[in-house]
């Protein structure tokens, strides 16, 4: 069904009893042109772009639980395109532009809110680094403004400006950044893809790959039977190594846990998304009023979807350093998600070394903002067998050749990216 002010009025006048299903919960067919493993934002976006941009409509998305039950439903909903290295800069801006038209494209309210993202700086060196990053963004056609202390004070007068150790000196602001409603993004892509004939199959866990005599992947074995496929794409960040292992691959990825937190609802406070540059703390305020915040990954390999107390304490200390008045706000929820931490902190979107298997992985803790861009470039790769021009550098073999994209300059130590 198509959503509009008229459909809303019609449903309201009939007591909201006649809403139709947003998307179709399908049962698997024997064969598809493309099978995508993973019914998160990236998998569903890929399916929608395949159907809408590339005319490949015989597509299935397989999800082991329910759609959006992994990292798509566990992130802190931030969208931005403030990356500094070639490869990342253009790709994330492509994604940002797709966020800006997503609601019209999908006919679904994904609550995209361009409220701005500000990264605070606390030293001269950090200001210089942010100035450089802002300049990099601007020469690539992305908006960026370097704010001085006065401008930050005007924007957020409630911050602690008396911090002697880490004084706020200013910030780098991307006004087009902001937040989007993560669950609505998943359902929006499901809604639009399903309408174009994509089969969304839940409770269908992939347990192995079917291969022909030459080793080419010809389908997947699942808990709901064998499904044949012309091509198989995997978008299972968090579990990439486990799925790839079924095809005999080892990836340059470690799975780590990242925690996120929501406070009880308070009155409107934060005008934008804000990051504390001296520690690791970032925060935004949801439309319901809760402060949504997080910090570093816990730092050890984990598939447990839950973290430990030291990081929780560190994150809350970061929050208190910036906004001492939140000390009495109660924490409502806390949870963990499993991050595909790649060896250089950047994603991998490539044809695998195994014929017929396409890999979309390594999103670290930044996959949500990439959702539409990832869908478009992965669909491009699946449909045309050549990388999209904004994803040419996300190759799997870049670790072997040395062409890594390491924003933080940490080297092959995934828990430090």
């Amino acid at each position, binding site marked *: 069904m198509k959503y509009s002010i008229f459909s809303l009025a019609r449903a309201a006048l009939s007591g909201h009893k006649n809403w139709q299903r947003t998307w179709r919960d399908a049962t698997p067919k024997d064969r598809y042109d493309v099978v995508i493993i993973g019914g998160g934002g990236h998998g569903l976006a890929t399916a929608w772009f395949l159907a809408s941009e590339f005319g490949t409509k015989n597509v299935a998305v397989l999800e082991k639980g329910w759609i959006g039950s992994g990292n798509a439903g566990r992130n802190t909903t931030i969208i931005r395109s403030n990356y500094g290295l070639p490869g990342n800069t253009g790709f994330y801006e492509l994604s940002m532009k797709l966020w800006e038209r997503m609601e019209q494209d999908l006919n679904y309210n994904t609550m995209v809110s361009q409220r701005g993202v500000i990264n605070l700086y606390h030293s001269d060196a950090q200001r210089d680094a942010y100035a450089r990053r802002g300049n990099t963004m601007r020469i690539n056609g992305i908006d960026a403004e370097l704010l001085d202390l006065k401008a930050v004070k005007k924007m957020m007068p409630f911050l602690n400006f008396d911090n002697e150790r880490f004084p706020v000196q200013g910030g780098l602001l991307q006004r087009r950044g902001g937040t989007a409603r993560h669950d609505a993004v998943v359902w929006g892509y499901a809604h639009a893809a399903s309408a174009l004939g994509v089969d969304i199959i839940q409770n269908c866990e992939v347990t192995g790959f079917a291969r022909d005599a030459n080793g080419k992947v010809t389908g997947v074995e699942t808990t709901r039977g064998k499904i044949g496929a012309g091509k198989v794409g995997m978008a299972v960040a968090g579990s990439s190594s486990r799925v790839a292992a079924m095809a005999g691959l080892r990836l340059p990825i*470690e799975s780590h846990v990242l925690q996120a937190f929501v406070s009880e609802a308070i009155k409107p406070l934060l005008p934008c998304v804000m990051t504390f540059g001296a520690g690791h703390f970032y925060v935004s305020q949801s439309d319901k009023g809760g402060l949504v915040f997080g910090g570093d990954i816990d730092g050890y390999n*984990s598939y447990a979807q839950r973290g430990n107390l030291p990081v929780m304490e560190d994150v809350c200390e970061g929050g208190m350093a910036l906004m001492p008045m939140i000390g009495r706000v109660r924490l409502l929820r806390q949870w963990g998600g499993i991050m595909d931490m790649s060896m250089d902190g950047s994603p991998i979107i490539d044809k695998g070394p195994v014929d017929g298997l396409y890999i979309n992985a390594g999103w670290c803790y930044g996959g949500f903002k990439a959702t539409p861009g990832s869908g478009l470039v992965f669909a491009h790769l699946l449909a045309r067998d050549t990388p999209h021009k904004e994803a040419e550098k996300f190759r799997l073999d870049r670790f072997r050749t040395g062409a890594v994209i390491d924003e933080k300059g940490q080297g092959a130590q995934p828990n430090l990216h």
Partner: protein
Amino acid sequence: MRIVCPFCGERELGEFTYLGDAKPARPAADAGEDAVFDYVYLRDNVAGAMSEHWYHSGGCRAWLKVTRNTLTHEISAVEPAAGAGAAKVGA
């Protein structure tokens, strides 16, 4: 998560620093590019019991080899890493 350091006893997680999987071993100097690539970049990324290196940075500063389940965070064994005063505890 708490780790029982063989030198200091049971201590909380915040005292320890993580290095990662203890399995990759530095290849010989003449081992060639493939072996080095494998050592530096590729990981088993184990889902289950994994042997890993932790450093007791907030305590005795010894390197430890910890066997921990990555699905549950349960720690089943802790021993000094090779060369980390292993002789002192008779390991």
